[in-house]
């Protein structure tokens, strides 16, 4: 049953199984294990970024396509939900319409980009996606009458998902709409993650892996490489858009910085590379690590700096303002010690 649910793609390593279980249980029980607004926000971000990283890995790790437009698709989903809620009024209908419209628009955009550029060399495809993503980000900033420009806009979500919807208390934790919203996001993220696992372990996923490894050979066997790459690009874009919808639903706000910025694209690359390309589990591990580091590394460094006050040089090095430096060091170390990513290493690949 569990194997079927995981499409027979189990973690295949004791340590990885434990890590995945910790992530799963940590997210499933986050409101009870780590009470507090900040930890719940971190858990929701982890769940959403796992889906976003998994969808990017379908493209980068499984198909060998380097795209810099993934946050653009993420943003389309987020703006879809935001605009639908703004214009249709708060309600689940608006969220559903916004999510589906965002996913459809993302898939259509991906189809157009793929159609025009997947026949060219990988580097040119990457450049084209970068150009399109930058153009869309600028456009969103300029069309302030529609998108709220640089400031973005807030919108209302269904009352049932708001903090004002109080339902009681369980094990000392207040059950309210915010908690329901978290579990809605967690469930949708889990479903999308399992969908990605299903896709990469299907015959379609195997063809993608074959194309990544040797596209000439895949063509010689009879597979239309451009068609497969195009479908993978569209699917990946649609899932990224759905992740964006979840993000907007969680934040109740959309803006270029939170959904379209290039720094999210870089984070995404790091998540996939650190976790391990070509393994959907890698996306889960990479996204969890990076979101945790981004959220708590500064706190951790603050505590370390206070504890080492008697050693001025070390204390200064551990100053919380230098957290990006240490994040960079951690990234270099992880690439050095885990060249195939954490999951690749744990599974004993190569």
């Amino acid at each position, binding site marked *: 049953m569990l194997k079927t649910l995981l499409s027979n793609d189990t973690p295949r390593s004791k340590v990885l199984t434990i890590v995945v279980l910790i992530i799963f249980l940590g997210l499933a029980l986050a409101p009870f294990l780590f009470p507090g607004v900040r930890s719940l926000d971190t858990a929701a971000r982890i769940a959403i970024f796992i889906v976003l990283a998994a969808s990017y890995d379908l493209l980068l790790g499984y198909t060998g396509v380097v795209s810099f437009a993934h946050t653009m698709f993420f943003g389309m989903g987020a703006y879809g939900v935001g605009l639908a809620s703004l214009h249709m009024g708060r309600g689940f209908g608006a969220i559903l319409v916004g999510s589906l419209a965002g996913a459809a628009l993302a898939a259509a955009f991906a189809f157009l980009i793929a159609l025009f550029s997947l026949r060219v060399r990988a580097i040119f495809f990457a450049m084209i996606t970068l150009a399109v993503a930058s153009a869309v980000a600028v456009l969103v900033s300029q069309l302030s009458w529609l998108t709220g420009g640089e400031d973005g806009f807030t919108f209302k979500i269904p009352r049932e998902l708001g903090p004002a919807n109080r339902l009681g208390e369980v094990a000392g934790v207040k059950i309210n709409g915010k908690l329901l919203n978290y579990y809605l996001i967690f469930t949708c993220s889990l479903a999308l993650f399992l969908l990605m696992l299903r896709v990469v372990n299907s*015959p379609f996923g195997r063809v993608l892996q074959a194309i990544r*490894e040797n596209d000439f050979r*895949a*063509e010689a066997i*009879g597979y239309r490489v451009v068609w497969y790459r195009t479908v993978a690009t569209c699917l990946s874009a649609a899932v990224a858009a759905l992740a964006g919808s979840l993000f907007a639903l969680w934040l109740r706000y959309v803006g270029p910085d939170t959904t379209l910025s290039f720094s999210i694209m870089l984070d995404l690359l790091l998540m996939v590379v650190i976790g391990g390309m070509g393994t959907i589990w890698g996306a889960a591990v990479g996204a969890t690590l990076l979101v945790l580091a981004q959220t708590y590394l500064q706190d951790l460094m603050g505590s370390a700096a206070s504890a080492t006050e008697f050693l001025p040089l070390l204390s200064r090095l551990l100053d919380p303002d230098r957290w990006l430096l240490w994040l960079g060091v951690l990234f270099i170390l992880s690439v050095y010690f885990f060249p195939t990513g954490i999951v690749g290493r744990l599974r004993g690949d190569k």
Partner: protein
Amino acid sequence: MSNQTSDAILKLQNVHTDIAQYHILHGVDLCVERGAVTMLLGRNGVGKTTTLRSIMGLWTTHTGDITFDGANITATPTPARARAGIGFVPEDMGIFTDLTVEENMTLAAASGPLSPARRDWIFTAFPPLKTFWTAEAGNLSGGQKQMLSIARTMAEERKLYLIDEPTKGLAPAIVSTMAAALKELKNQGASILMVEQNFAVAKAIGDYAAVMEDGRITWSGTMQELASDTTLQEQLMGLSMEASA
């Protein structure tokens, strides 16, 4: 100088192919007879591999015609040529190292699932593939990878097999296994166009031979005719089959 026959499954007429700025094939004329093995021979760098890749559509032919099973496929994309029934075993094997042996075979049977009878026949021809069925193909030895490369083409019945140097760099014991499997394929009535540098294997399997020089076919005829004439061999290839066997 093509071995023109009445029942050719593949016919190349005046085929010219460029790779980047280099003009590699200078008008190849070749016929491959249905149900027979045609060996494509010649020194290194004369265009044998380019000929196979041009037939498969992996290099674009800018002049000339390629006719397969009665249809002109010169402008047909590679996947469509494969689906029309041409199986290709490249020189570099081209196996998918991250996938298992089973997944490699399943992918190769593009028109439907790999039939158990066909799988058993492949296991008989290449026993190591049965042993390593669920192993990652990247972990196989060189000989096993070559076996997988050929077996993959055998995953379903093809109208024509293009095989590029199947015994290159293999240990003698593996070469025997490979030759036996190719003979078995031949006995089943397969049409094969094969590039082979090992003349002992070429002589044992081939029905017809075509010799290339500078991107053209300079001689074609029966393998028996070529194998029995050492003067002709030295004249065409600069060495005799007996000497190199």
